[in-house]
């Protein structure tokens, strides 16, 4: 999966976990949890959906890498064999 493919999938997963989430308001390099008012339960739902969609095991110690949309996309892309995003 490429970074962009991963990003699109992650946006869809967030929208599923948090109906009505205003993703347009979240810059891809900024933490999204606070911005989207995701509480711990929302975040767990997101992680579970993401794990199910990608087939990846997402251990607790990796949650730090899932703070931003870009971070999530890099994480998913690199673990599904895709290249990370070029540094911008």
């Amino acid at each position, binding site marked *: 999966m490429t970074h962009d493919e991963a990003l699109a999938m992650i946006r869809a997963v967030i929208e599923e976990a948090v109906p*009505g989430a205003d993703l347009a308001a979240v810059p891809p390099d900024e933490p999204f949890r606070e911005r989207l008012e995701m509480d711990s339960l929302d975040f767990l739902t997101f992680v579970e959906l993401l794990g199910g969609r990608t087939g990846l095991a997402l251990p607790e110690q990796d949650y*730090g890498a899932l703070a931003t949309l870009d971070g999530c996309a890099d994480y998913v892309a690199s673990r599904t064999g895709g290249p990370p995003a070029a540094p911008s």
Partner: protein
Amino acid sequence: MAYTIIAAQRHPHGAWRLPDYDRTCATFTWDEARSRMSGLPGGGLNMGFEAVDRHVEAGHGDWEALRCVAADDSVTHVSYADLAADASRFAHVLDDLGAAPQERVFTLLGRRRELYTAALGTLRSRRVLCPLFSAFGPEPVRQRLALGDARVLVTTEALYRRKVEEIRHRLPGLAHVLLVGPVADPPPGTAVLDRLMARASPVFSVPPTGPEDMALLHFTSGTTGTPKAAVHVHEAVVAHHATAAFALDLGPRDVYWCTADPGWVTGTSYGIIAPLTHGATLVVDEGEFDVHRWYRILDSQKVAIWYTAPTAIRMLMRATPRDGHGLPGPYDLSSLRFVASVGEPLNPEAVVWGQQVLGLPVHDNWWQTETGAIMIANYASGDIRPGSMGRPLPGVRAAILERGQDGRAAVTGGHVRQVPHPGVEGELALRAGWPSMFRGYLNEQGRYDACFADGWYLTGDLARRDEDGWFWFVGRADDVIKSAGHLIGPFEVESALMEHPAVAEAGVIGRPDPVVGAVVKAFVSLRPGCRPDDALRRELLAFTRRRLGPAVAPREIAFDQNLPRTRSGKVMRRLLRARELGLPEGDLSTLESRSDGT
């Protein structure tokens, strides 16, 4: 009993502050507890003075009051003298704005330094503090600001834009909005607190304050009607102080971490007031819940006393199970001396998990917004009966009352009756008169009066007492939902749903959940012509989340064109609960939501 009793803990290097429960219960009086307060120099009692000034006056201004841990783990240390100066500046700002004594100052803030500045400046200057939960959406915020007659609101620019700007025109009484932290572009009708504080004096004399003067307003939810604002007075500090020593073993310079959100009563009574009155050091975590972060804070800040919630404990259990490999890293929790929880019943498994993974059992305790302070607790010096709320605090008398037809305590000729035997379920009641008992619901005398009978405060919780005096939570006597330790009024959620044009009717219940106790689930019937499909379901979820915020909004919506109703047309939530749980619908007496996940 499935779990064996856990024997009393030994203090690691001294004596517990409640070394002998029975002895203290026999001798304790609230008058004695009152005498432990400093009191104002000219007489009177002020919660803010007891929290801050008295340490500074005793020469302890250099003691560390706050240890604010930012999201990036950087730490800011705030001494009692700094806190007094901040709070003094804030008090002067309120004076300059013309806010009168007893007027309401609301906060809509996460845990951060300015929360303490605002809270203590408000209390010390005899204004009334009303903290709101920042995960409320615009509608709950508006309703509470209006019901509480808010004069001043302290919040951040981001929260103001998200939750207040669109409703501000409906709040004519809200004269001042003060923004804390960095402000890029102050919206019209707001002021930047830092700028006002910079001009204010760091010295402020606490004005004469009576023990019965209003100090705090805390909103809570009932089954029907609007949220209620429980009124607490300055004398509540007597109970905050005494109970924190008895039930949390708090003392001077203890490093203490209360994880409760400042928008709930625990976040004020035990997140601000009680630990400060003891001269403790408060860990203020500005970050999000994260398993590793939490263990890291316990370790790096050398937390001695930790007061958290069953939901948080259960989230830690998921990540670090009892049969796993222990802590998820080389975390040193050897400074930890006492762990307590509150919010909903702690399942026995979690008590035992604490013992095995944290090295200490978790001591559950019980209280409510209305009680203002911990009323029933498991103590460090006593055995824990896993799953039990514990025993009443010294000075607190609790009883189990027989119930009548409506499920609440039966009142006959003005009198109530206690259940005849141990082990019998009934409504939990407390003998009225402890210092932190609420003194009213703001502007709602009738609802306040309905909480009392025959000299007892009726809690609305069902419980039983075993033959040795330990209390066990059974459920709510009404339809209020307990989710992640917070009370949610089904009526508030139903009202929001009904504002959607597709919704004809709604009934809202708590569906039992192993982690958060109960999740808010709505059953909705639709207006003719509306299709009950997934798109509409998602639209309703988004619609309610936008209005109510994540703390209150339903997480699940089911369509049902035949909602069960009473003859008078009210949706029967109990029947919805019975159907959801697969219980026989006729046996309504057993349907109280069991929120302990067991």
